C-alpha cells in the first residue's frame, strides 16, 4: 500500500504521520510513536490488551486501522497521567494491588475509565460485564473490580 499523510491527536498532541493506511493503530502507536503501553495479546480483539480510547470510546487498536483513526482523538495509557498526578483509576489499581504481571493492566485501566464514564456508579456485576472483554491470565479480577469500585466512589466524593 502506498504511504499517505494522516493526522490524528494522540494524548492531546497533534501527530502528523506518513504511513500505510492499512496498518493497525496498534502497530503505529507502538512503532512510530513509541507508545508501547498498548500491548499485543491476541491480534483479534479477544483479550483487550490493546485497548485505547478513540473519541472516548474503547477500541481494539489491533483491529483498527490507522486510516480509521485519522482525524480522531486517541487516548492511550500514557495519556491518563496529568502533571504527575495519576488518574483515579490508575491510583485505585495501585491501592488495591490490582495487577500481577501487569501486561493486561493498561488495557484494563482504559476499559475501566470508559466504563466509569458511561456508568459512574456500576454494581459489581456491571463492572464484571463491562470488563468481560479483558483477559487477565494472572487472575487479578477481584482486585480489578474492587479498584473500579474505589475509583467510582472517589469520583463521587
Amino acid at each position, binding site marked *: 500500500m502506498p504511504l499517505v499523510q494522516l493526522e490524528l491527536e494522540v494524548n492531546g498532541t497533534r501527530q502528523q504521520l506518513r504511513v500505510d493506511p492499512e496498518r493497525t493503530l496498534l502497530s503505529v502507536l507502538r512503532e512510530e510513536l513509541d507508545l508501547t503501553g498498548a*500491548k499485543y*495479546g491476541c491480534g483479534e480483539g479477544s483479550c483487550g490488551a490493546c485497548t485505547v480510547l478513540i473519541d472516548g470510546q474503547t477500541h481494539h487498536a489491533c483491529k483498527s486501522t490507522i486510516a480509521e483513526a485519522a482525524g480522531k482523538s486517541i487516548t492511550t495509557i500514557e495519556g491518563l497521567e496529568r502533571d504527575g498526578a495519576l488518574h483515579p483509576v490508575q491510583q485505585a489499581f*495501585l491501592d488495591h494491588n490490582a495487577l500481577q504481571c501487569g501486561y493486561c493492566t493498561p488495557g484494563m485501566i482504559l476499559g475501566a475509565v470508559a466504563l466509569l464514564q458511561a456508568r459512574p456508579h456500576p454494581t459489581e456485576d456491571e463492572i464484571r460485564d463491562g470488563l468481560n472483554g479483558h483477559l487477565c*491470565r494472572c*487472575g487479578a479480577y477481584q*482486585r480489578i473490580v474492587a479498584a473500579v469500585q474505589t475509583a467510582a466512589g472517589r469520583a463521587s466524593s
Partner: protein
Amino acid sequence: MTRPNHGDRLPLTDRERTGLNTALLDRRAFLKRLGGGIAVACLATGRHRSAFGQAMDHERRPFAGDKEPEAISAWLHVDGQGRVTVYTGKVELGQNVRTSLGQVVAEELRVPFDSVDLIMGDTAQVPFDNGTFASQTTPIMGLQLRKAAAAAREELEATAAERWQVTPDEVAARDGKVVRQRDGTALTYGELAAGQEFVGVVDDAIELTRTETWVVAGTSVPKRNARDIVTGRHRFASDWKRPGMWHGKVLRPPAYGAKLASVDLSAARGMPNVVAVHDDQFVGVAAPDEATAARALAAIQATWDPPAATCNDRNLHAYLVDNARPSGSDPSRIQQGSIEEGKRASSQTVEASYTAAFIAHAPLEPRGAVAEWAGDNLTIWTGTQRPFGALMELMRVFELPRERIRVLVPDTGSGYGGKHSAELEVETARLARAAGRPVRVGWTREEEFAWGYFRPAGVVETAAGLDSQGRLAFWSFENINSGTAGLDTPYRVPHRAVEFRPSRPPMRQGAYRALASTLNHFARESLMDELARAAHQDPLSFRLAHLDDERLIATLQAAVAKFGWRDWTRQEGRGIGLACGAEKGSCVAACVEIALDGPGGSLRVTRVVQAFQPGSIVNPDQMASQVEGAVAMGIGGALFESMRFEDGVLRNGQFSRYRMPRPRDVPSIEVVLLNRPELLPTGGGEIPIVAIAPALANAIHDATGQRLRSLPLAPAGRL
C-alpha cells in the same frame, strides 16, 4: 557471632576462573566493578547445585581428586552510600518476588525496604540459576539471601565494633546504621562500607532473625514497580527496542512433527530489504518492519513431510493408555502392603478413570525477544523463566563461550511454567546474525499456542476399596503420561500402590503450574468423594477419618469453617464440593458452591473459599494474590480449557477459540491464609491451583448426582 570467611576459602576451579564467578575470587576486580564496599555470596548446596555447574565442571575439570567445586547461587553488595544491591538469577514474572526477596533482605540487613535494589536474571551480572519455577524462589533463594544479608549485617557490626574498639555485642544494627549501644553513637552502612574491600561467603549455619520480630518481611509491601506498570512506562521484553532494529519471522510447520522437505526462498530474497535464512529445519526472514517481514514469509515456498498419524483430542486418552509403559516398571512406583490383600479385605470397591486434556499456559505476553550482535558478542533481551537455560542453548548453537553472550530479562508478562525453553532466543539470534543488525522476533498468539508446549494430558486409573467399617482398605493409583507431582495420597490406607507410567504424547508437552498435580489431585479428591458416597459418609468426615497430617487437617478445617460448610442449606440447582491436598511444604483446601441455571443450563461458580498454609508468609497480600490468581487460572483448566487437534495440527490456538476464565467466570475468592511463623517460608505459586478442579467436580455431583471424571468439566460453560 559468626564472621563470614574471607576469599581465601573460595575454591579455585577453572570454571570459576573463566566464568562470572572469577570476579569473586579476584577481589579487587570484583569490588572495583561494584565500586568497593562489602559483598557476601551464598553457595548453592547439594541438590540445588546447577546442572550447568556440573556440566561445566566436566568440561573444565576441577583439580583432580578434590571434592565437588562449590557454586555461587546469589550475592549481595553494600556500597559506600549504603545502598544494597542483590544479584540473583531469579526473574520477575508477576509473582512479585522482586518485592518479597527485597523484603527478606531489608529485614535481615535492618534497612528500609526502598534502599534494596535487585538485579534479576542478567546473566552478565548474576550467578548461575537453573530457573524461576517449582515454587523454589521463596524457600531456596529467599533463604540464601536472608543468610547473605545476615552475614553482611554481622560484617557491618564487626567493622563498627573494630572502629570503636568495642566487642560486637556492644553494637547493634538498625535502620541502615550500626549503633554503639551505650551512647547511641552511630555509623551509617555507607560510612562503614566505604573504602572497604570485603568479600565473604556466608556460613550456612548463620542465625536468622526470628519471624515473630519481623517488621519488613511479613508485611504487605506493595509491588515495587507497580506505578511504572499502571502508567505504561514499564517495558516488557516485547516492548524492547534497539537502534536500527528489524523484525523477524519464522516459517512454521503445518503440524507438530512435520519435517521440511523443500524450500524456495527466491521470491522472499528478491524483495528489497529482506534477509532470508535457511539452515536445516530453520527458515526465517528479517525486514525493517513487521509488515514487510510478514509479506516475505508469505512469499516462501515450502513443502513438508507430514508427521506420522497419532490421534486427535477425542481419542487422545485411549491413545495415551495404549502407548503407556506397563505397570510395575517405573522408579516412581510406591508400594506398601499388598493390593491383593487389600482387595480381600474390601467389602466395596470403586474403580474409576480420570482424565485431563492438553491445555495451554496462554501467558498474556506472548514470547518476544530482541537480539543484537557486536562482532561475536551477543546480547539478548527476552521474557523467559530460564535466562541461563537460554544462555546455555545459545552457547551450544553458536559455539560460543559464556563470556560472549548476555541474556537479560525485563520483568515479564507471566510464564506459569510455559517459558522454560529457548527456541525463541535461538531464532532471534539467528536472524539478527543474518541481518547484521538488531532483530526482534515476537511470537503471534497463534505461534504461542502452537509452538510452545502444553500441560501434559493424562489419564489416572484408580481402584480403591473400603472395609466393612467404611475405612480405606487399599488404594491403587496410576498416572499415565502427565507425571509424578502429587501422585501419592496423604490419606491413611494399609495397602497402596501408586505409579507413573510414561506414554507417547502426540503433542509437545512440558512444565505447567503445579505440573501433574492438577490431574493427580483432581483424581484423588474426586475418588475420595466417590468412596465417601459408597461408605455413606459425608466427604468432610470421610477425609478427616483418614488424615494424620495436622497441617492438612487444620487447612481443611479452616476452609470449611470460613465457608460455613456444615450449615449450608440445600437450594434448587446449587451444589457444594470440597477438596484438599499437600505438597511442596504447603497445604491447600477449597470449598466451592456452584449454581446451574436449569437442565443443560449454564454453570456458574458462585462461591470459592480457599485456605492455604505455606509456612511463614513474607508478604501476606502477595500470597493472597497468588492464591486468587491460581484459583482463577485453575477454573479454566477445571471447566473450559482443552486443546483441539488432529495428527499434530492444532485447531483452536487462538483466544477466540480457546475459552479462558474472564471476569464473569471468577467470583471473588475468599482466601484464608494460615501463617506458620515457626516454619520457614515456602512458595505459593503453584499448589493453590490443585484443589479447585476436584472441588468443582464434587460440587457438580452434589448438585446433579452426575460424576464427571474428565477435565475440562464444562467446556461450553454448561453441563
